[in-house]
């Protein structure tokens, strides 16, 4: 490979990626990604789930190594061995899920793993540590006692503590500090977000930032420049001043043949037979008074933001969160599922978002996973008919076009899309009448998504009913016959989404927030 020509922009950048590629089995996660962060700059990074943002962040923080391409820090080629190494070289990370240990004090958190500088003969000089921690907190203008336990702080303050912690890297990094902010606002209220943004702006003289968020308005608000990722590649680089939400959205989604993408022509009218009916369903503080009817062959999308109660509602339908009010009727019988086994018995199959944890037994073969939910029908006199099992598994692998070396291959070795097809095959083999699709295309590339859409269309045309929650509103609208919108635990809107007459995202968003 030819060495890249000396490039003034890259040389003056705090941090730059040049033509970085990264692949996992079956997924080309990053395709020739280049980006740069200038000194004191705040760079926004957006993209749908699966666009490659997290992989990119993991490469920047030393968790993954690029397959090809390089990382430049202050213009010099750098290798980040692991996250500690990235820290030493001036790349800090503030995580999406807050990473503070809530049972430790603020000061202990800030210097966790770096107590050596305060330690003599194995004894930590706590006074010195807390004095240093207080100085770090002053940098972010957070007025809390470093001896306070992290659990006693509100979320916004915890986020500031995380940034203060990242700022401790300043000293070691020789002035080249870049802080990655991974969805830092996802648990914050609007007013808290404003405070956070003001502090981040004030820190420009100390550090540069990469800001990752789903919230396009926030990215526009905070960033100087914005990179848009889609399907593993950077598809646009815009100055924030030249961008607006619709334009960012266009780049992020970037496809015109929507209807084709979601196989809308295959959307058949559903039948009259009601398979699931909820009347006034409630569960703790999560949702209340939820009523709907789900008919054979129908795809019912549930839209809502985090905390809207839709996650808990789907968990109720599969036996993880038994409802405590109202009635749930499945196939004409009133039910209250206290375990998944009860839901499975009544013909409900769960395609979970945590595919590799709850969807598949990764260390079992494809065949054993396909038959796992319906071993009973393969059992004669207590003995599993393995010949029949092989025959069934082979049939499903062919029917669903599962790309695997064989039916005895461990699911671990399959790509995400093929793993998801195994999960679907499991429930179809168990003759599920209702499928609960919980973010069914998360982490899949475009091709695999389309295959999943096609399969979902195929099973619904055979009369299987589907409840869908999804990462994107677009997917929810594109696939569903009907959409329920939830906010703060209640249904705020019901929209028909018949073929050729899909509601717009804007219509629904108004009822979500």
């Amino acid at each position, binding site marked *: 490979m030819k060495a890249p020509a000396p490039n003034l922009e890259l040389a003056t950048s705090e941090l730059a990626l040049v033509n970085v590629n990264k692949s996992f089995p079956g997924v080309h996660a990053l395709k020739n990604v280049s980006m740069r962060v200038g000194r004191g700059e705040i760079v926004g990074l957006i993209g749908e789930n699966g666009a490659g943002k997290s992989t990119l962040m993991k490469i920047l923080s030393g968790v993954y190594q690029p397959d090809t391409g390089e990382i430049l820090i202050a213009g010099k080629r750098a290798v980040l061995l692991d996250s500690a190494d990235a820290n030493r070289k001036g790349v800090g990370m503030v995580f999406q899920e807050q990473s503070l240990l809530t049972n430790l004090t603020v000061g202990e958190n800030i210097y966790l793993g770096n107590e050596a500088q305060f330690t003599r003969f194995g004894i930590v000089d706590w006074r010195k540590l807390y004095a240093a921690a207080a100085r770090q907190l002053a940098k972010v203008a957070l007025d809390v006692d470093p001896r306070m336990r992290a659990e006693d702080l509100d979320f916004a303050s915890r986020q500031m503590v995380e940034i203060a912690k990242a700022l401790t890297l300043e000293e070691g990094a020789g002035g080249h500090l870049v802080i990655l902010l991974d969805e830092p606002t996802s648990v914050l209220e609007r007013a808290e977000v404003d405070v956070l943004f003001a502090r981040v702006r004030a820190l420009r003289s100390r550090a540069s930032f990469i800001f990752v968020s789903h919230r396009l308005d926030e990215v526009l608000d905070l960033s100087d420049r914005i990179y848009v990722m889609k399907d593993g590649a950077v598809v646009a680089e815009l100055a924030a001043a030249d961008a607006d939400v619709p334009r960012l959205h266009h780049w992020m989604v970037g496809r015109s043949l929507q209807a084709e993408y979601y196989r809308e022509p295959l959307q058949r009218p559903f039948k009259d037979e009601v398979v699931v009916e909820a009347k006034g369903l409630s569960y703790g503080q999560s949702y209340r008074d939820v009523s709907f009817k789900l008919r054979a062959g129908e795809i019912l999308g549930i839209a809502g933001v985090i905390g809207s109660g839709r996650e808990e509602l789907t968990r109720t339908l599969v036996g993880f969160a038994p409802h405590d009010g109202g009635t749930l009727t499945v196939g004409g019988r009133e039910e209250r599922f206290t375990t998944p086994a009860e*839901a499975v018995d009544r013909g409900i199959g769960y395609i979970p978002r945590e595919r590799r944890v*709850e969807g598949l*037994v990764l260390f079992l073969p494809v065949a054993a996973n396909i038959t*796992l939910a319906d071993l009973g029908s393969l059992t004669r006199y207590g*003995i*599993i008919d393995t010949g029949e099992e092989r025959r069934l598994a082979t049939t499903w692998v062919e029917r669903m076009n599962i790309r695997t070396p064989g039916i005895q291959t461990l699911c671990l*070795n399959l790509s995400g899309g093929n793993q998801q097809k195994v999960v679907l095959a499991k429930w179809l083999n168990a003759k599920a009448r209702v499928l609960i699709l919980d973010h069914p295309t998360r982490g899949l590339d475009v091709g695999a998504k389309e295959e999943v859409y096609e399969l979902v269309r195929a099973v619904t045309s055979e009369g299987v009913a589907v409840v869908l929650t999804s990462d994107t509103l677009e997917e929810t609208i594109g696939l569903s016959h009907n959409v329920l919108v939830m906010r703060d635990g209640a249904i705020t809107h019901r929209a028909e989404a018949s073929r050729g007459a899909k509601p717009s995202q804007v219509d629904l968003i108004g009822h979500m927030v």
Partner: protein
Amino acid sequence: MAAFIGTVGLDRLRQWLPLATLVILVALIGALQPVFLQPATLLQLASDTAVLFILATGVTFVIMLGGIDLSIQSMASLASVVVALSISRLGYGAFPLALAVGAVAGLLSGLAHTRLRIPSFIATLAMGGVLFSTALVISGERSITLDTEARGYLTWITGAILGIPNVVLIGLVVLAVAHVLQAHTRFGRYSAAIGAGEPAAYASGVKVNRQKVFAYVLSAGFAALAGIILAGRLASGSPTLAAEMLLPSIAAVVVGGTAITGGVGSIWRTLVGALIISVVRIGMTFLGVNIFAQNIVFGAVLIAAVAITIDRSKIPIVK
């Protein structure tokens, strides 16, 4: 891709490592001591392995689904005491009684683990203490020798058919039954699924707790059977009869190639593991290693086997 094939190849190699070890050990000792390869010696080896194999088989079921049973040696000892105390009154009825005690103990361990959500090593460590003390109390802290009349009920253990010792035949029956249970029934499949990925098994409708409780019942039941056979062979019952058998049993399971983290394994592997332990023991006797020093070797072998059988890099956190 090359790395991927490399892993698969390595995994396949790992699978055959225990059997290769066994063959090499037997060949090695046979070369040094040709008498070792004579049928009589090999039958003696098989007889000596039977009890260890039965204990290890029971605990294999628990290890397969990701748990551990530390109460098996106390259970085996208690079973020997129960047999010794009741055989003169109950005759053959002493054996089902000992097995029933085992089943109840396993049921209690299993319920403590699943209902009270106590880690299995704590639940069974505690159960082991309870069983050991029970054996001490009911035996009056002594070894009970069986009289001639009682020994009459023990011929199914001590006898031989066509020159093959009955203990070996019992071991083969256990092998057959346990193999079918593990490899051909829903219980066996569910155990593997739970061991390899409990959340996915649960979400697929597997009644996880029921399978777990059953595994602990099997483990304690097989431990009781091992205790009965031990009582028969030694013609006595004692609260310390099976002492020092826990470590070799778990070592046998793991040396055979069953992953201590669950999900991967089989009864055949446990058989190979138990034979390796026996051969190593005999080898040490040939080499003149002090019998009390043998657990040093088994401890080292256990650590080595765990390190070799699982690719540790796949496990993020070890507790």
